[in-house]
């Protein structure tokens, strides 16, 4: 099984190798990098390109890790034991009717290899991360209530993303393959743009990219990234804006700069 990117996703040759190595070694791949560099997209595209089902977990700070494996619905079972009827189709005596599985659980129990995305792992606290990595490394977890071990039939292709807002612990890093996606340079960026807007006229793109990279260098709190650029180019084309563009009068500035501070800052720079 080899990953070669898709028609909607420009894949850096290095990243392609990395994904393939991680798949061959059955190791989780931790991708870090600025927002908008396609960290999360990577998992979607692997799933698309290899035709594997994607299991997705968007991390929250309250996660303890276990709910990504399974959830045991005690309240429902209690309720059924009191008020339950045949119609529910659940058997109160059978705990399996009250277990539901999270993305990790589903990926492990599936009869095919799946892509598992743990998005923004840095939002969870370090205990959760360590617990999760144990689970992912062994490819198994235990349903505590019945002491039943769920073992992965196929190790999922695991992609973990992190904005590196918080430092991840050493043991965590040790168990992953880590890759930092650098922000694409202008040439790579034009290829990415071409994938999304094959029809875009070259002068518009060149001029827009120049403005875009100039804006990025102004040290905004949230510098515009690929996603913003694509939105902006979409807006420019819909409106039929003609090049050349200048950084001083950027149409649809709101699609590029999202923070009020940044917008104000930009206005001040101009005047």
């Amino acid at each position, binding site marked *: 099984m080899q990953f070669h990117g898709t028609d909607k996703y420009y894949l850096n040759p290095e990243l392609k190798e990395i994904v393939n190595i991680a798949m061959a070694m059955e190791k989780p791949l931790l991708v870090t990098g600025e927002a908008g560099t396609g960290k999360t997209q990577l998992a979607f595209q692997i799933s698309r390109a290899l035709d594997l089902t994607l299991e997705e977990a968007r991390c929250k700070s309250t996660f303890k890790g276990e709910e990504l494996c399974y959830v045991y619905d005690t309240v429902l079972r*209690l309720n059924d034991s009191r008020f339950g009827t045949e119609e529910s189709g659940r058997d109160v005596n059978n705990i399996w009717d009250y277990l539901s599985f999270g993305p990790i659980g589903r990926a492990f129990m599936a009869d095919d290899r799946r892509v598992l995305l743990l998005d923004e792992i840095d939002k969870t606290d370090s205990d959760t991360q360590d617990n999760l990595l144990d689970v992912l490394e062994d490819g198994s977890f235990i349903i505590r209530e019945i002491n039943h071990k769920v073992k992965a039939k196929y190790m999922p292709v695991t992609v973990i993303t992190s904005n590196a807002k918080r430092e991840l612990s*050493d043991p965590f890093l040790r168990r*992953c393959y*880590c890759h930092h996606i650098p922000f694409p340079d202008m040439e790579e960026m034009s290829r990415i743009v071409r994938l999304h807007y094959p029809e875009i006229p070259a002068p518009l793109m060149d001029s827009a990219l120049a403005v875009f990279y100039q804006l990025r260098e102004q040290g905004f709190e949230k510098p515009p990234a690929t996603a913003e650029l694509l939105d902006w180019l979409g807006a420019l084309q819909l409106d039929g804006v003609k090049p050349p563009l200048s950084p001083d009068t950027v149409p649809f500035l709101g699609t590029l700069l999202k923070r009020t501070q940044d917008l104000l800052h930009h206005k001040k720079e101009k005047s």
Partner: protein
Amino acid sequence: MFLPFFYQLRDQGIPVSLKYVLEFYRALEKGLAPDLDRLFILMRLIFVKKVEHFDVFEQAFAAYFLGGEGDSIPRFSLQAWVEKDFSRWLEEELAKGTLADDALEKLSLTELLQRFWEVAMEQREKHRGGHTWVGTGGTSPFGHTGAEQEGIRVEGDSLHGSALKVIESRRYLDYAASATLRAENLRQVLGALKHMAPAGPPTELDVDATIDQTCKNGGEIDLVFTRELRDRIQLMVLLDNGGASMRPYLDLVKLIFGLMRDQFKDLDYYYFHNCIYGCVYSDAQRLTPYPIYQMLRRDPETRVIIIGDANMAPAELMLSDGAIDYFSKVRVPGRDWLWQVRDYFGHSVWLNPIPRHRWPRESQTIFQIGEIFPMEDLTLAGIRRAVEWLNSGAPPKKASRQAAALRHAQG
């Protein structure tokens, strides 16, 4: 294979463990590095876990693989490696007596490989600069008692028929207690430091209480929710940063203190010199005082760690005008200040960078302070015990306080 390169990485400060090396060999066997480019990516994935190491790695890689050694990658087989190099090492170790001859039965292959790796790295450090192969010229610090045994078999082939020297198996060494402090094992120990307290809204179903309530309710379901347990630890570190006596331990203290800062979100730290009188300081230059009375209004559940050598003139501890700073107007002896802190913060401990076995020789104040705070040294075992003290929150040793007072009066 590639051992010199791994040494090089290690020299450059990239931690290379046996686990990585084996993983790398496994990947090679899978044919994941058919060319130099992919070898580069593979190695980086396996060995480099932090962005700050990328550059160092790239340079080491370029120096080793592109520095005139040619870019051909010899075919690699883990099997052959185990049979040739590793077996040779094993043979020599057995001959020298550094490995007990029953080790082969007792230790798994991974354990043996681990040993091999440790020796390789150790020797590298001894003969820095040379690429000496493992097993040549190493000396063994272990004694031996002669014993004869025949027919040790590795991979089905008899290695030795002659007498093999036996030593006590190194397995019985208490690795944990004698292990040197490294960032890694320290982090593990500090990880045990927790204060679980209920937090947030009651959202977690208390199954036992629910069943109880439901029974009392005659079978009508009555759900009982509790608040979740979360780690709410607050940590305060008081650091003795004054005087020449602490200087030899600077690096050690820095390491530990740095780790604590990484690990705990709620960490406050203050500085003092030798003993605490009336206040500690929030800056290392000890210019901004933080009075003790203010400190004693904090949450008493705060965990307090004092790091200092507790080595001072007895007068500093015992006399009311003992404060080392002549301008200090405080007229309460240091010992009483320490008791105040100890009485208020039940979860407190004193960490002394002086190794425990030297305490009796250093200063009597070490023992006097040791009667106030549980005192541990900065070894891994010491810190582990200190974490236990902090978690259990041993009550202040009132009894020993009286005894100390008595002894003081008598003495």
